């Protein structure tokens, strides 16, 4: 029963896991006849080497922060929400309906309304599985997966039959009016006279994501609801003893989780595409699971791992562009990171504990 110092538990273990994942990815790259060193160079250069690269990396990271936080909140209640994908898609629908239904005079007014729409639709999409779990015992893992498919089908229907402008052949909503376009980070920088990240999608939503990290931290570790969520997640019999209602906690945790996933739409639908397209989530809902796992279900860890996955996403795109390494390699690296940080956690932890126990004895 060795114990790790906190910094080793929170920083060192995930770091070693990531390095192991990278090492094996390097072997894969070698096996397809490319140079891992070159590949790394292309990735770092493409994702972090310029303000242009950063603009994309931060944009992706913003998505992953929301979906990572979504997984985290449910996790603390002992619930595994794999429905982030569908909840984010529904969030997109909610934001779109809000934006297109009123002639918004300014983005600053449209933004809070769109946030409510996005979070509301995402939360609603999580509510049904939550209710089924709390009342009927239908496992939330199964139902949230199924709800991903239902969301995809529903979105398909809405885009083709309801939201598609007359005469358009594209299954997408109308473009959002210019007044609702969110300020890009590049534009905000320019206002201060700095040229940064021209033509990149990173936008003001990044700050909303950062605020969400702080708020979720407050919620989980400082509020009574967070206390009850954590207690319920650790032990349901104990929660019952303490007068914590399982139904209430399951529903509330899933509502918050779905709402966070839905909020992602503010970044990708309102901030980037500026209209609703098919498959706008692009797997970010699932990556949120890896982000939360690697971030140890702590908002600060999620911020860091969202940045890492943002880097992998953007760097992976660059790889596909400049080398013969297919974009899918990124999926391999992601899978390895999930494997090492999630499933094989003890493989790294045990030897580390041993090392610390030994060095502890010598002191």
């Amino acid at each position: 029963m060795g114990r790790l110092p906190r910094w080793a538990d929170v920083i060192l273990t995930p770091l070693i896991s990531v390095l192991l994942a990278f090492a094996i990815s390097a072997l894969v790259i070698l096996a397809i006849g490319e140079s891992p060193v070159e590949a790394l160079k292309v990735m770092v250069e493409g994702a972090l080497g310029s303000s242009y690269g950063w603009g994309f990396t931060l944009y992706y990271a913003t998505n992953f922060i929301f979906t990572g936080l979504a997984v985290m909140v449910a996790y603390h209640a002992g619930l595994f929400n794999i429905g982030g994908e569908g909840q984010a898609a529904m969030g997109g629908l909610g934001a779109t309906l809000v934006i297109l239904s009123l002639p918004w005079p300014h983005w600053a007014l449209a933004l809070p309304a769109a946030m409510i729409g996005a979070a509301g639709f995402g939360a609603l999409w999580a509510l049904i599985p939550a209710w089924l779990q709390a009342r009927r015992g239908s496992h939330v893992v199964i139902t949230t997966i199924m709800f991903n498919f239902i969301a995809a089908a529903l979105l398909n229907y809405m885009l083709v039959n309801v939201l598609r402008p007359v005469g358009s052949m594209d299954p997408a909503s109308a473009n959002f009016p210019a007044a609702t376009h969110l300020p890009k980070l590049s534009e905000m920088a320019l206002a201060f006279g700095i040229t940064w990240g021209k033509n990149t999608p990173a936008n003001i939503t990044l700050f909303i994501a950062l605020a969400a990290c702080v708020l979720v931290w407050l919620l989980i570790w400082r509020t009574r609801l967070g206390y009850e969520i954590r207690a319920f997640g650790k032990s349901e019999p104990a929660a019952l003893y303490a007068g914590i209602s399982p139904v209430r906690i399951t529903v509330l945790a899933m509502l918050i989780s779905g709402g966070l996933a839905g909020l992602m739409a503010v970044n990708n639908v309102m901030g980037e595409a500026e209209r609703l397209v098919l498959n706008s989530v692009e797997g970010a809902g699932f990556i949120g699971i890896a982000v939360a796992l690697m971030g140890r279900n702590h908002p600060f860890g999620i911020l860091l791992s969202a940045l890492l996955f943002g880097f992998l996403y953007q760097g992976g795109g660059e790889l596909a562009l400049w080398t013969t390494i297919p974009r899918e390699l990124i999926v391999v690296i992601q899978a390895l990171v999930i494997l090492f940080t999630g499933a094989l956690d003890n493989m790294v932890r045990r030897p580390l504990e041993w090392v610390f126990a030994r060095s502890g004895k010598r002191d």
Partner: protein
Amino acid sequence: MATDDTPAIELRGISKAFGPVQANKGIDLMVPRGTIHGIIGENGAGKSTLMSILYGFYRPDAGEILIGGRPIVISDSQTAIRAGIGMVFQHFKLVQNFTVLENVILGAEDGRLLRPSLARARGELQRLAREYELQVDPDALIEELSVGHQQRVEILKALYRQADILILDEPTGVLTPAEADHLFRILRGLRDEGKTIILITHKLREIMQITDNVSVMRRGEMVASVKTSETSPAALAELMVGRKVLLRVDKAPATPGAPVLELRGLRMVDAEGVERLRGIDLDIRAGEILGIAGVAGNGQTQLLEILGGYPEAGARLEGEIRLKGQPLPLSGSDGRARRRAGIGHVPEDRQVEGLIMDFSAWENVAFGYQDAPEFNRGPLMDHAAIRADAQGKIERFDVRPPNPDLAAKNFSGGNQQKIVVAREVERNPDLLLIGQPTRGVDIGAIEFIHKRIVALRDAGKAVLLVSVELDEIMALSDRIAVMFDGRIMGERLPKATTSGDLGCLMAGVDPAVVPATEAIPPAQAPGTEPGGGAV
């Protein structure tokens, strides 16, 4: 059978550490052949670690094991079984939906086909049953057997594997006094046949009753090995704890006041349609400890859960609960409403219910009281206030180590229980529900917890004590009610009863009414029979 001089088991200098914790320190032990050897010690003294080493679950860091005079390295349980060691665990390792016979041969099948093994085992079981009073129906399913019979199956399993040395870990914890007596007869029979028996227990009475020799462990060390006939319970207790202890609870006679809790015809049918409580009528007065005796699983847990405000999901309830004259809702209540009404609750299982094991001690101090105004400031919880409260409780209850940041799981059983008791008692509830207050708690802490319960009583509060430890019930209660099969079988005053009398009631027999039959009086509850079947 004549015993030769080589001891059945000899341990020399066995040491085992888990990280910084030295669980066993240079243990020497000599168990002569054909004896019953007791090993006694507080929780965490290292008894279980030592036995796990003997059964091959752990490898010792240092030391030597000799079985029948020959050194042996026990690397796994298979080696232990081959060396003739059989183990009966506290929590049985039986397949519930297998028959007795199938369980006995499990892992000891002769070949690929089961039939020959089963036939051989059937014959062998008959022989063992004759020789040792180990009668069990070989074709009964385990789930249909009583706990006492399940334990016999465990012993049979070991004997079937030709065990010469039998280790029993806290074997009587789940037995009625009569079942325990039967077990002891079996053990004596086995000893007389030349088997060697190691009995791990924390009950001094059992040690005195059945063992030939006894070894005392304290903090990982073997502090004494003596002949049982040459020692006394008080001497053993002192060796276990390292100081003099009070084996009896010092308390003034109770001065009961007005009834605090009144139960009338309380019935409960669980989600499966099983009637768990069959009409309970009870009064508990202010300034009185009512002890509920009974073998685990006779409705005590359900009673505590209902009073605590969290009956099992899907259960149907009938009857009346009144607290200080005010009716309490049967269901639709929750733990917090009950706490507000003045009921404190130390649950039977502190690790599953009473504490969140991953939470720190100070977070656990607010558990169940998380909405108390003094623990909250605006929308956020007031961590500083909770920590200050925890610090005070830790000091007043002498919780060790006195570190509020330590996770609950890192405290010993006794200190965990002190945290729970501190939390519930210091709220000064009108009624304290307390289940198994000292299960897995060391003697020093037992004394302390008992004193606190008595102090609460002396402050004019009512206490409902549920315990499967008859000694504890006898020592603490001002009045004893015995529960059997969801009924109160009878009430006794501790001075006017014996463990034999209570034992009969616990087995469902009222010695005053129907001596030695299995007749059970019909339910006295006025309520109608619930309409049967799960809803």
